[in-house]
């Protein structure tokens, strides 16, 4: 029986994430995938602003900390400077789908050969639970205290579906990590996304539906239940684009 041990894709730093938050699982999956693909030595990660801002302390590879939302632009510069590097961003929903929408969309439409790990937990975590672009209709947050009123605050945005329409996207899949079968699927998706970059296929993104028990005001188990019952119906799991055979160009 294989020994269960920590991946060399992560450092020994202790995560600062809250109990029940799924960032830790996703970090581990990204670390395992980098280890298994043997790319830790040439990986350059880009950390966002948000809960994952200190990802630079956790991933065991070279890291750049980017301004809020600008990770895909920073990653673009890094990849263009040294195409042999494997460049990935790790971003939350506020970072990727609000303040950084332009950087996300344009890196994608350029077919920038980078990999984006997108954590969608329907809320701003780091700043204490404000409405995110992905906050569901009716969802209560600090800045939607009466529930998100779409007539005032707009509709929750589906990034994977939107990005899938762009010609530069080699791979876009939405996964979650709320149970073991889904964790396995998520890891396979993350591996496929990095593999696409290794083979020069174009822009790859994996959206991970994640929990935020602290800011949702739920216990971890309840948070998992809430995600399954509320987020998955609005954000269906699945592959939205796959051009990994031929590549985008």
């Amino acid at each position, binding site marked *: 029986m294989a020994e269960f041990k920590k991946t060399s894709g992560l450092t020994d730093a202790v995560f600062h994430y809250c109990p029940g938050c799924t960032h830790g699982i996703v970090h581990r999956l990204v670390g395992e995938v980098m280890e298994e693909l043997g790319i830790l030595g040439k990986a*350059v990660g880009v950390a966002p602003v948000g809960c994952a801002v200190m990802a630079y302390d956790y991933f065991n590879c070279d890291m*750049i900390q980017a301004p809020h939302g600008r990770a895909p*632009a920073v990653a*673009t510069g890094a990849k263009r400077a*040294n195409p042999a590097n494997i460049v990935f961003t790790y971003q939350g929903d506020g970072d990727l789908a609000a303040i950084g929408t332009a950087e996300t969309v344009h890196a994608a439409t350029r077919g920038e050969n980078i990999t984006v790990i997108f954590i969608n937990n329907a809320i701003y975590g780091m700043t204490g639970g404000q409405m995110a672009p992905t906050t569901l209709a009716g969802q209560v947050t600090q800045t939607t205290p009466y529930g998100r009123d779409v007539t005032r605050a707009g509709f929750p945005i589906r990034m994977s579906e939107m990005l899938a329409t762009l010609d530069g996207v080699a791979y876009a899949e939405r996964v979650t990590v709320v149970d073991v079968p889904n964790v396995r699927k998520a890891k396979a998706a993350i591996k496929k996304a990095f593999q696409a970059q290794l083979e020069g296929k174009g822009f790859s993104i994996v959206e991970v539906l994640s929990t935020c028990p602290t800011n949702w005001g739920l216990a971890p188990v309840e948070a998992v239940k809430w995600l399954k019952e509320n987020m998955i119906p609005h954000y269906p799991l699945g592959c939205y684009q796959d051009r990994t055979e031929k590549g985008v160009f």
Partner: protein
Amino acid sequence: MGQKFLMKGNEAIAEAAIRNGCMHFFGYPITPQTEVSAYMSKVMPKIGGTFLQAESEIAAINMVLGAASCGVRAMTSSSSPGISLKSEGVSYIAGSDVPCVILNVMRGGPGLGGIQPSQADYWQATKALGHGDFQLIVLAPATVQEIVDLMGTAFDLADQYRMPALILADGMLGQMMEPVEFPEKKEAPAGAKDYATTGTQGKRKPNIINSLYLQAPVLEQTIRDRFARYEQVKQNEVRVEEYACDDAEIITVAYGATARVVKGAVDMARAEGIKAGLIRPITVWPFPTETIAKAAEKARGMLVVEMSMGQMVEDVRLAVNGRCGVSFFGRTGGVVPSPAEVLAEIKKLAGGTN
């Protein structure tokens, strides 16, 4: 060296950057600097370099952050409103101790302003191109040739002190054509950029490019360390031209294209028997404080001329520190002062010679 080219300032800037080992340029169109991008887009694909037209000024400066973090010489250029957009990225680059070169071909502001030459971004360039405690090395060329000569200086100083360098030009310099000679093309020096995120290759601990320090005393110390480097820059890197200053009683102070107008006025004043001189800061940060303070000891008065409502004049007054009077003449909004206007101001100071 030797061969002369007749070239537009913006194109000369681009060629000079390439000759100094800049193989990665990220831009966005804006008048009056668009020819920089156009030139880069023509040349870079042929020499294996990167030209990328970004989706915004914000993206362009962040691409510079990404590329420069990986140890290459990277550059972006813009004009006033676009530079404002870059300020977030500039602050991160400074806070991450990453070298790069930024070009501002200044135009009239505020807001969308105009597209004619201006020097109204002096405060932004020298005091606050972004949030937080930091400085840029700011070089202010006066001729197309000097733009070319200072491009190598900008990249070298940025690398040496691990900080961004800004070329502060104006629409006049960007658009004018002048004969220029270029240095031989050279590779970026293969110096030890041991901070660069080039991948560990399994041979070292990860490098982290970062400006976040949540422990206040730690952040304070990183800033103090950075300011210790700024002190070295102040001591070693001041560049200034003194013209006809030896016996001058009226000292003018001007930088960039404006200094050429003022030089003409100084010559006209000399022809009329007025002992006028010109101090031209070439670095506006670090500022030539000592040169100006020394000149103030024996000058009857100083006249600062700018294409603004008066920005550098404050640095001159700080340097003069009451040793002599400092007056100001400026045109702004894209209006270029004429030598005759400046001469009239010199005469006012000289007094009784009119």
